[in-house]
C-alpha cells in the first residue's frame, strides 16, 4: 500500500521516528556504545579485556547451557502440551488454557522463589526426604544450571504451547486427510503435520531463547553465574560501564544470529500457516485419547502453575501476612499498576504508528526492525544506557528524577514485542478498504483513524495487555533506574529477597501475580468488547 507524499505524513513520520529513537535506539546506543566510546574516543580495550579473561568462557558456557537447555525443554514440553490441548474437550481446554496463562503470567523470578521453597537445600522436598530416608540422603538441589533450566522451562513453555495450538488449528486439515489416504498416522504427522507446525514452533522457540538469553533474575536467584548476572555485578560492584556493556556482545551476536536464521528459513514458510484464515474446529478424538491428553496437560498445569502458587500461598499464611503486605506495599502496587498501564499505552501507540508507517513506507520498516536492540542488549545494559542518556542537569532531569525513566526502560525493552504484534495484525488486514478510501480522496490520517485503527483495535488491546503484563513484572532494567519514591513491586521483592522466601516475600509475590492476572483479565474483557464493537472487515 502506498500513500502520496504530503507534509502531514512527513511530520507524522518524523515524530514517530523521533519517538522511536528516544525510546529504543538512544538508550540501546548509549548502553552498548559505552563499551566502544571511552573518554571521548573509540576504544576496544573493554572487549580485549573481556576476551582475555579466562572466566569468560565459564560464563559463556553457563549462559549457552541455560539458553539452549531451556529452549529445547520448553519446545518439547510446549509442543506436547499444545498438541494435548487440541485433543481435549471445550471446558477442559478453557481451564487448561487458564493454567497455561497463569504459568506464563507469573514472572520467572516469582516462580523461582516458589521452587526454592520447594526444592531448595532446606526446602519441603529435602526436609521430607530427610525425614523418610535419614540425614544421609542427597538430592540434586536447584542451585545449578539444570535448576535454572527447570524453572525457566516451566515459565516459558506456554509460549510454545500456545503457538503450537494456534498453528494446529489454522493449517489446512485437508492436507492431512489426503496424506492419510496413502500413509499411516505417524508418517503423516512426520511428513505433513509437523513441517506445517514447524514455523510456529521455531518462532516461539526463538522467543524463549531470547527471553532466556538476556534474563538475569532467575540465574541470580539460583546463584548461577551467567552473562546477564555478570553485567549486573560489573555495574554494581565496579561501576565499570565499558566492561559491563562489552559483556552484552554475546547477547547481540547470539540473538542476531538466531534471528537471521529465523528470517532466512522460518519467516518465508510462515505463509503456510495462513492457508486457512478461520480457525478450524478442534479435533474430536476418542475418549481414551481425550482422557490421556487431559491428564497430561492437567499434570503440566498442576506442576507449572498450581504448585508454585500453592507453595507461595502456603508460605504466606496466615492471612494477616497478606494484610501486612498490602499495608506496606500500597504505593508499590499503585506504582506497578500505573507503570504497567502507562508503558503499555506508550508502547502500543508507538508500535501502531511504526507498523502503519512501515505499511505505507516499506523502506522505513528496516529502521523499525532495530526495536529488538534494547531487548537484546539485556536489561542491565539498557538501564546503564538510560542512566548515561538522561542523568543530566536541565530538562533531562525531569525524566531521570521521576517515573519517566522507568517508563522508558519498560517501553524500550518491550517495544519489539508490541511492534511485532501490531505488524502481524496489520499483515492480516487486506489493504482493499484503505485503497478504496484512497481512491475516493480520503486523507491518509482519516484512512488511518477511520479504517485501519478501528479494524486493528482488538489487536491493539491485546498488545496493550501483553506489554502491561511484561512491564508489571519487569525487573532487570528497572532495578537500576528506579528513582527515590518510585518502587515497583518487582524491585521491592528483589530487595527483600535473601535467597529464600520469607512470609512477606511470599505474600508480595502472590499480590504481584494477582495484579498481573487482573490486568490480563481486564485486557481479555476489553478485547472481547473491542471485537464486538469493531465487527466490520473481518
Amino acid at each position, binding site marked *: 500500500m502506498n500513500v502520496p507524499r504530503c507534509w502531514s505524513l512527513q511530520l507524522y513520520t518524523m515524530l514517530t521516528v523521533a519517538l522511536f529513537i528516544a525510546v529504543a535506539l538512544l538508550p540501546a546506543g548509549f548502553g552498548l556504545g559505552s563499551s566502544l566510546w571511552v573518554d571521548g574516543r573509540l576504544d576496544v580495550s573493554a572487549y580485549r579485556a573481556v576476551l582475555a*579473561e579466562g*572466566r569468560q568462557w*565459564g560464563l559463556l558456557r553457563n549462559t549457552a547451557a541455560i539458553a539452549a537447555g531451556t529452549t529445547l525443554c520448553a519446545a518439547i514440553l510446549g509442543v506436547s502440551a499444545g498438541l494435548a490441548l487440541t485433543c481435549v474437550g471445550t471446558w477442559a481446554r478453557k481451564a487448561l488454557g487458564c493454567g497455561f496463562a497463569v504459568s506464563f503470567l507469573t514472572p520467572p523470578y516469582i516462580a523461582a522463589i516458589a521452587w526454592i521453597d520447594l526444592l531448595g*537445600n532446606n526446602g519441603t522436598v529435602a526436609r521430607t526426604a530427610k525425614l523418610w530416608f535419614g*540425614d544421609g540422603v542427597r538430592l540434586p538441589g536447584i542451585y545449578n544450571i539444570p535448576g535454572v533450566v527447570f524453572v525457566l522451562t516451566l515459565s516459558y513453555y506456554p509460549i510454545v504451547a500456545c503457538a503450537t495450538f494456534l498453528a494446529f488449528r489454522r493449517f489446512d486439515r485437508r492436507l492431512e486427510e489426503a496424506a492419510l489416504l496413502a500413509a499411516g498416522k505417524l508418517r503423516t504427522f512426520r511428513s505433513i503435520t509437523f513441517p506445517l507446525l514447524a514455523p510456529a514452533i521455531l518462532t516461539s522457540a526463538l522467543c524463549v531463547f531470547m527471553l532466556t538469553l538476556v534474563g538475569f533474575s532467575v540465574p*541470580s536467584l539460583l*546463584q548461577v553465574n551467567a552473562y546477564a548476572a*555478570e553485567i*549486573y*555485578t560489573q*555495574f*554494581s*560492584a*565496579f*561501576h565499570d560501564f565499558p566492561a559491563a556493556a562489552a559483556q552484552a556482545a554475546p547477547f547481540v551476536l547470539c540473538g542476531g544470529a538466531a534471528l537471521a536464521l529465523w528470517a532466512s528459513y522460518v519467516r518465508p514458510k510462515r505463509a503456510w500457516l495462513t492457508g486457512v484464515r478461520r480457525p478450524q474446529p478442534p479435533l474430536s478424538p476418542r475418549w481414551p485419547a481425550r482422557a490421556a491428553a487431559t491428564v497430561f496437560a492437567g499434570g503440566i498445569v498442576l506442576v507449572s502453575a498450581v504448585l508454585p502458587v500453592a507453595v507461595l500461598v502456603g508460605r504466606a499464611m496466615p492471612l494477616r501476612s497478606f494484610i501486612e503486605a498490602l499495608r506496606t506495599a500500597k*504505593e508499590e502496587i*499503585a*506504582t506497578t*499498576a*500505573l507503570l504497567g*498501564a*502507562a508503558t503499555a*499505552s506508550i508502547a502500543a501507540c508507538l508500535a501502531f504508528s511504526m507498523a502503519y508507517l512501515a505499511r505505507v513506507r516499506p523502506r522505513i520498516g528496516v529502521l523499525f526492525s532495530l526495536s529488538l536492540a534494547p531487548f537484546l542488549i539485556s536489561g542491565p545494559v539498557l538501564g546503564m544506557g538510560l*542512566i548515561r542518556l538522561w*542523568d*543530566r*542537569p536541565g530538562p533531562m532531569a525531569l525524566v531521570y*528524577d521521576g517515573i519517566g525513566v522507568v517508563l522508558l526502560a519498560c517501553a524500550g525493552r518491550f517495544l519489539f514485542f508490541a511492534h511485532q504484534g501490531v505488524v502481524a495484525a496489520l499483515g492480516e488486514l487486506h489493504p482493499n478498504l484503505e485503497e*478504496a*478510501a484512497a*481512491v*475516493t480522496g*480520503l486523507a491518509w490520517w482519516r484512512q488511518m*483513524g*477511520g*479504517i485501519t*485503527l*478501528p*479494524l486493528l*483495535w482488538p489487536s491493539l488491546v491485546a498488545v496493550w495487555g501483553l506489554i502491561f503484563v511484561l512491564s508489571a513484572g519487569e525487573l532487570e532494567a528497572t532495578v537500576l533506574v*528506579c*528513582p*527515590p*519514591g518510585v518502587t515497583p513491586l518487582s*524491585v521491592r521483592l*528483589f*530487595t*527483600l*529477597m*535473601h*535467597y*529464600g522466601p520469607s512470609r*512477606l516475600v511470599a505474600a508480595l509475590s502472590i499480590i504481584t501475580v494477582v495484579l498481573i492476572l487482573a490486568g490480563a483479565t481486564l485486557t481479555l474483557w*476489553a478485547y472481547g*468488547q*473491542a471485537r464486538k*464493537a*469493531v*465487527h*466490520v472487515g473481518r
Partner: protein
Amino acid sequence: MEVTLVLLRRRMRHQGKSERVGGVQFIGKSLLRVLLLSVVLVSGCAKHETPAVVVYTALDEMYSRPILEEFERTKGIKVETVFDTEASKTTGLVQRLIAEKQRPRADVFWNNEVVQTIVLRNERVTAPYISPAAETIPPQFKDPQGYWAGFAARGRVIIYNTDLVKDPPTSILDFAKPEWAGKAAIAKPLFGTTATHVAVLFAEWGSDKAKGYILGLRHNNVAVLPGNATVRDMVAQGEYAVGITDTDDANGAVEDGLPAKWLWPDQEEGGIGALLIPNTVALIRGGPNPEGGKALIDYLLSPEVEGKLARMRSMQIPLKPSVTVPEGVPKLSEVKAMRVDFNKAAEKMRIAQVFTQQEFVR
C-alpha cells in the same frame, strides 16, 4: 467508472458514519477511560507538599523501614527511600551515589558498614556535618571532620553447626587449614560486609599476605555464597559445617532454634580480634534537602535508634555508653575488637574487590 467512484464515495461517507458509531466512538471512550484512570493513578501518586528527605540505605529493609517510618511520624518529614538489593549489597548504592555525584538525588546515605562510606568521602560525594547527637560516639567510630558517624555495630563472627562441629575454629585463619577443606563457606566478597572484611585484611596484613590468605581459602574449597544470610542458612542446614557471617544473621539462626551457634573469632592472647563494623550515616554533598537530611542524621544517631536496633532481631551492638544493652546482646567492652584503620581499608577496597572477583566469581 465514474458512477462506481461516486457510489464508493457515498458508501465511504455512510461507512464513515457507521464506523464512527461502531468503532471510533468506542475507541474515543476507551481512550478517555485510560486517560481518566491515569489521572486518578497519577494524582494518587502525587508528591507531598513538604519536601521529602531522600535516603539511600544499605541496611536490610526489615530493620531500616520501621526506623524511618518512626522518623516520619515523629518529625513530620516525609522520607523517600532507596533500598539496596541483596544481590549488590551496599556496593550498588555506593556506585549509584558516585554516578549521581554531579547531580545528587539523595540527602543521606545510611550504610550498614563503614569502608564504602569512606570511599564516598574520598570521591567527594559526602559533605561534613558534625551532628550534636554524635558527641558521645567513641572516636574510632566517627570521622573527626564529620564526613560520617557510626552507630549500632555488627561483628564478623564464626557460625558453626552444632550437630556437625564439636570443636569449632576460633580464628578466621583456620578456614584455610586442611581440616576445614570443603566444609566452610563465606559470602561473595564483592559486596556488603564481606567486601569490607577483605579490604580490612588487605589494609592490615598488606596485599601479599591478604592475597595468600584468599588463595588459601580458594584452595581449601571454601564455598562462596551470595550473601551472609545464605551462609547462615547453609551452615544451619548442615550444608557446610562452619562459615563467616555477621552477628545479625548468626543471631537469627540461634533465635530460630536452628542447630547453630556463633563465636567471636581471634579472641585469644595475641589474636587480631574480631572485626566490628558500625552502621554509618553521611550527608550527601549538594543533596536537594540538606536540612531534612541533617534532621534525619540527628535522629539516626540518637540513643533511641541504637536501642531499637539492639532490641531487634538484628541485635546490633550500641556504640554509645548511655544506651542500655538488652539481655543477650554483646557489650562493646566485652569483645576484643580488631584495631582497624578504616581509611586505609577504603584505599584498598578496589584492589581487594578486583582480586577476589578474579579468584572467586567464575
